[in-house]
């Protein structure tokens, strides 16, 4: 069946470091991916998206990389701040499946 999964359940970084959160997907026909950030006690919030005809997309301090060959995408957060502490989910648009989630912990 469809699956969108994450490699690491928890990622701990120091403030100022760069963070990389990974996600694997199984459906080679998937054509649109979204990253969401969920802070404690809140609903997920859109961060950045990428279409399958791209391999990289940049936002403010965030970059998403897509490798269709190995069905893998990553979210890179530059100069991680304490306010980035949250659970991050990747999601695939056509099936509305969310990945397992990675908890990012940023220590000062």
């Amino acid at each position, binding site marked *: 069946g469809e699956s969108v999964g994450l490699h690491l359940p928890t990622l701990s970084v120091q403030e100022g470091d760069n963070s990389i959160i990974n996600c694997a997907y199984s459906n080679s026909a998937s054509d649109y991916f*979204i990253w969401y950030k969920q802070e404690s006690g809140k609903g997920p919030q*859109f961060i950045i*998206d990428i279409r399958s005809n791209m391999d990289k997309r940049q936002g403010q301090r965030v970059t998403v990389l897509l490798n269709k060959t190995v069905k893998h995408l990553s979210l890179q957060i530059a100069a991680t701040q304490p306010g980035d502490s949250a659970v991050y*989910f990747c999601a695939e*648009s056509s099936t*509305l499946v969310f990945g397992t989630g990675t908890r990012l912990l940023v220590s000062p």
Partner: protein
Amino acid sequence: DAMVIQNPRYQVTQFGKPVTLSCSQTLNHNVMYWYQQKSSQAPKLLFHYYDKDFNNEADTPDNFQSRRPNTSFCFLDIRSPGLGDAAMYLCATSRVRVGAKNIQYFGAGTRLSVL
């Protein structure tokens, strides 16, 4: 201003006592979704409405029902809550159902406790 509003934020019900959770949106989006999220897990889609067209996920228990009386409102009815139904329930909207730009906007959720 909140665009997807869920009420109440916290709901306590008794085992077997029907409960209704509500969601409203100011985005005028065509699609509304209900997700169940248990602790330290990803949101799990229960069902969604595309306009008035109801789409139930295959593994959503019959105990869960939904109503969408108009574009702005959507309700989740749990007919006979069990202890395993205690979770965060998230409502979301999107302009389109699938495909590119299917960005979902989530409410803050309703945390349901079952005693």
